[in-house]
């Protein structure tokens, strides 16, 4: 369906006149005009033409009427595949609806038929998806779809989306399901605390626990009943009169048997005592006779031992005497050896003393020689030192004089250099006639004239050389001062000149050296000093005196080692002899004592009275006979006697049976009384009935919990089914929309981070839709999700418009066919750059769509391109 022309008569601002927009083309058409020119009025009229029945007097129709009144008329030409038709409607008064074939002018339908014709030409009806897709002024905003009089692009598809996803009914069903489920279980499927399901489970558990407790109580009751039954049976058995009589008879019989057995046991005990006594007496008689025989044997043995002891004592005494003799001899030999050893040692000592004296004498002579040399050297040193000290010069005296002498020589040389010189060359024959200071000058000789110099010339007279006044005076003065100084120094030293001074200094040095040499010689002879040497000599003089030797001293040197060996050997022999003597002495003493003891014992035995063997034999025989009689008597009593222990055991057992029965009867009676009380108390509680009741309660609660579990399973399954179906429907519907939207978004976002690449996920962009508004709820760019609310106004506007264009193009491709998309000042917030991109998007979509753009922003929309439209005057025909 393509709109080719739109004409209005007597509509709002166009009161009593008509206006038309003609020549509307395919693709993008632009009606650009200032505000208040009636653009929106034109398309409100178009909306009414399509959606408001001509018979309507509703607000939508009334809104078209101008203030001056009258009946609004709207006419449009629509191109369909089978031709172009002119649709005209007039509302409120003179209501009309007419359809004409625009080509032939043929009336196609009028009135209600015209409305039906129009509805039929709008697949889905005038309210369906094929209605005009309108983006209202300021309506291209996310979440601000205009659901007013105009049919918005999204409103047109909302029904379809809702039909597909179940829409509000799905929401309500899911809400109901979730609400009912949430009342029973938590989000994780666990019974909700306080909910019916949890309460039923709790109740079931509580009743089951109570039933368990009651089961235990019933079991306890039955156990008590069973025990009472057993106790009663036992008590009946015990208190049976026949049994009681039997127990008592047995007790009496066993007691009597015990008394008889006890009496017999007493007799037997007496017989055993008598037998014991006889045994003792017989044993004593035998022992007496045995002791007498043993005594006789003991005396004979004692006599033999005494004799042996005596002999042994005598032998020991002899041995002791021999050992004593040997010991004395050995001792004497040892003493002699010791004396010889002492003599040898004394002689050796003397020899050693002499040797030491001789050595000391030799040493003494040497030391005395060294002492003499040392003392002589010391004397020389002291003499030289004294002489050296006498000739000693003050420190640096020589150096001072030598220095003055050098200065004097220098000055003299200077004076000489300054002096007038002369030379005598004698005439032949005149040699020696010139004298100076009385001495004749040699031929060719001469000299220097210092100061006035007088030459005596024989035969001539005196020649006086007088220097010029002042010449050499300074040098001469200096010379005189130095000379005076030198002379004074020499004078102080008492020496005439420098050579004397040097000689004295040399002499003093030689003496000092000689003193040092002599002192060194003294030290060499007496390193420790003369006094030490002298003391050593004195000591040696004592050592050097030879010892005085006894007169009988052998001349030869003794063999001291042999003497020592001999002395040791004899000492050992003496010690051995002494030990042997001690042992022999001890043996002698012991054997003497043994002999004495044996003698004493024998004497004692001899002193004891001797027993009569026959009498002893008779006594033993009598005792044996008495024993045999006692034993026979005891055996006679034992034969046939009752076992007292057995009788006592039988009596005890019979008595204990009676006592135990008595005690058990008492115990059983008490136990049965206790059972009675317990049973009565428990029966009062009716545990069996309570158990049955509680089991019923538990069963009912469990059944209810089971029913609720079934309910939970059903609701869970319903929830799952609803969510699965809705998710599938969403995927089915929004998938194509996103596919359609993606290239448009790429146009829009090509320079934004993450934009331009298309597709979801990181690096691209993606959209998530709000199912109610059908608008993007979230834009994801570069992996970052941005809720629509935080996007800029421009971006929101652009996304909303692109979404509508995507829906519109999808619808245009569908069975419903294309419907004009009308954008009424839709891009209010877009900047120049973005608006051009949006223009590109519009043109892209306009390949399948007719788009009518209404704008008051003439300059901004100059670059939109497309077919420009303008409103022209139109004279409405008479309908």
């Amino acid at each position, binding site marked *: 369906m393509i709109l080719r022309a739109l004409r209005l008569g007597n509509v709002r601002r166009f009161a009593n006149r008509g206006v038309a927009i003609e020549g509307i083309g395919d693709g993008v058409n632009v009606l650009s005009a200032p505000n208040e020119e009636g653009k929106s009025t034109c398309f409100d009229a178009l909306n009414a033409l399509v959606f408001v029945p001509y018979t309507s007097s509703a607000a939508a129709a009334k809104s078209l009427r101008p203030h001056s009144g009258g009946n609004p008329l709207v006419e449009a030409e629509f191109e369909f595949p089978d031709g172009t038709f002119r649709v005209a409607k007039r509302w409120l008064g003179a209501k009309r609806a007419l359809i004409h074939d625009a080509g032939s002018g043929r009336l196609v339908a009028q009135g209600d038929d015209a409305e039906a014709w129009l509805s039929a030409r709008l697949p889905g009806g005038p309210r369906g998806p094929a209605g005009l897709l309108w983006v209202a002024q300021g309506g291209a905003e996310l979440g601000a779809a205009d659901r007013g009089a105009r049919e918005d692009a999204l409103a047109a598809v909302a029904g379809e989306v*809702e*039909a*597909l*996803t*179940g*829409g*509000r*009914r*799905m929401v*309500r*069903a899911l809400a*109901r*399901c979730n609400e009912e489920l949430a009342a029973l279980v938590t989000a994780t499927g666990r019974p909700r605390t306080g909910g019916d399901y949890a309460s039923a489970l709790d109740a079931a558990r509580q009743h089951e626990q109570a039933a368990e407790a009651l089961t235990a109580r019933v079991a306890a*009751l*039955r156990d008590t*009943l069973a025990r*009472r*039954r057993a106790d009663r049976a036992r008590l009946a058995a015990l208190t049976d009169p026949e049994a009681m009589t039997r127990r008592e008879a047995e007790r009496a019989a066993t007691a009597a048997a015990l008394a008889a057995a006890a009496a017999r046991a007493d007799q037997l005990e007496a017989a055993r005592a008598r037998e014991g006594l006889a045994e003792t007496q017989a044993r004593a008689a035998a022992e007496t006779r045995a002791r007498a025989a043993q005594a006789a044997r003991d005396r004979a043995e004692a006599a033999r031992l005494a004799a042996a002891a005596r002999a042994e004592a005598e032998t020991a005494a002899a041995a002791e005497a021999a050992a004593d003799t040997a010991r004395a001899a050995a001792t004497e030999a040892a003493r002699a050896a010791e004396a010889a050893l002492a003599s040898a040692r004394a002689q050796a000592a003397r020899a050693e003393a002499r040797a030491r004296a001789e050595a000391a004498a030799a040493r003494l002579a040497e030391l005395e020689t060294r002492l003499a040399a040392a003392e002589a050297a010391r004397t020389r040193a002291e003499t030289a030192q004294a002489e050296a000290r006498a000739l000693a010069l003050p420190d640096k005296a020589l150096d001072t004089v030598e220095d003055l002498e050098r200065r004097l020589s220098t000055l003299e040389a200077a004076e000489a250099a300054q002096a007038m010189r002369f030379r005598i060359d004698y005439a032949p024959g005149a040699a020696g006639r010139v004298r100076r200071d009385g001495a004749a000058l040699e031929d060719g000789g001469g000299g220097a004239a210092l100061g006035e110099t007088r030459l005596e010339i024989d035969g001539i007279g005196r020649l006086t050389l007088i220097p010029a006044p002042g010449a050499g005076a300074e040098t001469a003065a200096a010379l005189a001062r130095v000379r005076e100084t030198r002379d004074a120094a020499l004078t102080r030293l008492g020496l005439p000149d420098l050579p004397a001074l040097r000689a004295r200094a040399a002499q003093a040095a030689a003496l000092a050296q000689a003193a040092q040499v002599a002192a060194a010689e003294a030290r060499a002879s007496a390193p420790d000093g003369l006094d030490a040497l002298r003391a050593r000599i004195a000591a040696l003089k004592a050592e050097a005196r030879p010892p005085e030797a006894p007169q009988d001293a052998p001349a030869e040197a003794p063999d001291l080692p042999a003497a020592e060996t001999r002395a040791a050997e004899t000492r050992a022999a003496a010690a051995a002899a002494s030990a042997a003597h001690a042992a022999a002495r001890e043996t002698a003493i012991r054997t003497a004592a043994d002999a004495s003891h044996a003698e004493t014992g024998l004497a004692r035995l001899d002193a004891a009275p001797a027993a009569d063997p026959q009498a002893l034999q008779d006594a033993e025989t009598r005792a044996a006979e008495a024993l045999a009689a006692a034993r026979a008597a005891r055996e006679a009593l034992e034969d046939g006697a009752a076992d007292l222990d057995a009788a006592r055991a039988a009596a005890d057992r019979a008595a204990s049976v009676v006592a135990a029965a008595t005690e058990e009867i008492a115990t059983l009676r008490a136990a049965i009384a206790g059972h009675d009380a317990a*049973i*009565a108390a*428990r*029966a*009062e*509680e*009716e*545990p*069996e*009935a*309570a158990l*049955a*009741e*509680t*089991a*019923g*309660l*538990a*069963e*009912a609660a469990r059944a209810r919990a089971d029913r609720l579990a*079934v*309910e939970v*399973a*059903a*609701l*869970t*399954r*319903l929830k799952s*089914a*609803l969510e*699965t*179906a*809705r998710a*599938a*429907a969403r995927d089915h519907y929004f998938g194509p929309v996103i596919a359609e939207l993606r290239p448009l978004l790429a146009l829009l976002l090509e320079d934004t981070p993450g934009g331009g690449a298309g597709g979801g996920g990181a690096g691209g962009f993606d959209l998530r839709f709000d199912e109610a508004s059908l608008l993007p709820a979230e834009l994801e760019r570069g992996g970052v999700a941005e809720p629509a609310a935080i996007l800029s106004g421009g971006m929101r506007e652009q996304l909303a418009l692109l979404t509508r264009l995507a829906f519109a193009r999808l619808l245009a491709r569908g069975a419903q066919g294309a419907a004009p998309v009308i954008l009424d000042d839709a891009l209010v917030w877009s900047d120049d750059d973005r608006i051009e991109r949006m223009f590109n998007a519009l043109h892209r979509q306009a390949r399948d769509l007719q788009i009518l753009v209404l704008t008051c922003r003439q300059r901004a929309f100059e670059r939109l391109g497309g077919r420009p439209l303008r409103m022209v005057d139109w004279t409405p025909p008479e309908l």
Partner: protein
Amino acid sequence: MLRLLHSSDLHLGKRYGRMPEALRGRLTEARHGALERLADAARASGAAHILIAGDLFDAETPAPATLRQGFQAMAADPALTWVILPGNHDSLAADELWPRAAAEAPANVRLALSPRPMDLAPGAVLLPAPCPSRRPGRDLTEWFDRAETPPGALRIGLAHGAVQSFGEEGAVDVLAPDRARRAGLDYLALGDWHGQVRIDARTWYSGTPEPDRFLHRGPGAALAVTLDAPGAPPAVAPMETGDFGWETAELALLPGEDPAARLAAALPAPARRRRTLLRILATGRARLPERAAFLAAADHAAPDFAYAEIRADALALEPEAADLDAIDRAGALRDAAEALLAEARDPARPAPDRAAAATALARLHAYAAEDADEGAPA
């Protein structure tokens, strides 16, 4: 001629744990009141003897109050003689119960504690078979065959136990069903089954006078037995004694039926409902709206009754396209409904999963119906 009233299985002292708390007291009181109603029935039928064929008491150790109040009710009419036989619940092993009962029983109460002939009335001998324990493991009536009674005397057996084993074959603890014939009994009064059952002309289970479960159909009742002469067939007449009725309304539904109408027809008269415990079982097949209608009708009727238990587990869903259309004609809701239906019908799935899917589908349908009722925009 001898008239007697045959009853059994009163289970005095038993409590109703499965029932709502508010109802338990009423039921307990009704159970105790059965004694009085038995006495009334005896008097109404001209019987001087009331035979209780076991399980007068529910437990071996009933509370003293239970015992004493029971005896007090029996003693109310000294003209009536009560003969009480230990059953399996109150067997002779209950050595607390029976000595106490023997000590406290009023003069018109006779305890049949030994398997020995008892003189019931002039010319009538009772052969009792008391249960020695809960599971005696033998036919306790066997001795009846050899029991000697005075010539010309009526022989009346009194026993407690099953005549048919529901366990393994060859069980030895069942009573011979033809014991009356074998032992030459004029009548064999049996207890144990809570429903009233005729085994043969001379052998009857009286059933309990006050039911306590849904297992058996029919009201609580006793049997009025008239024995004209030895060998003559007894005249046996049921006497209704129950206070509360335990009824099961089983509705086998088919698609297209009106569940509410079917239910209304199956329910007892309104006047009886307050003393009726009702179990409503829906079986068969139904469409989604029919299932919802059944549940709605059952929920609506439930408050009329002392207790109502509604079960639709066994009601298979057989939805038609229109049922699913009611949920939605297309789209996600319809897809969800189709998925649930397929799952509910998939025999390869475990039964609990199928049941959950069916219930979920029914619930989804209910949501849609409620939406429609509320006029919510589709």
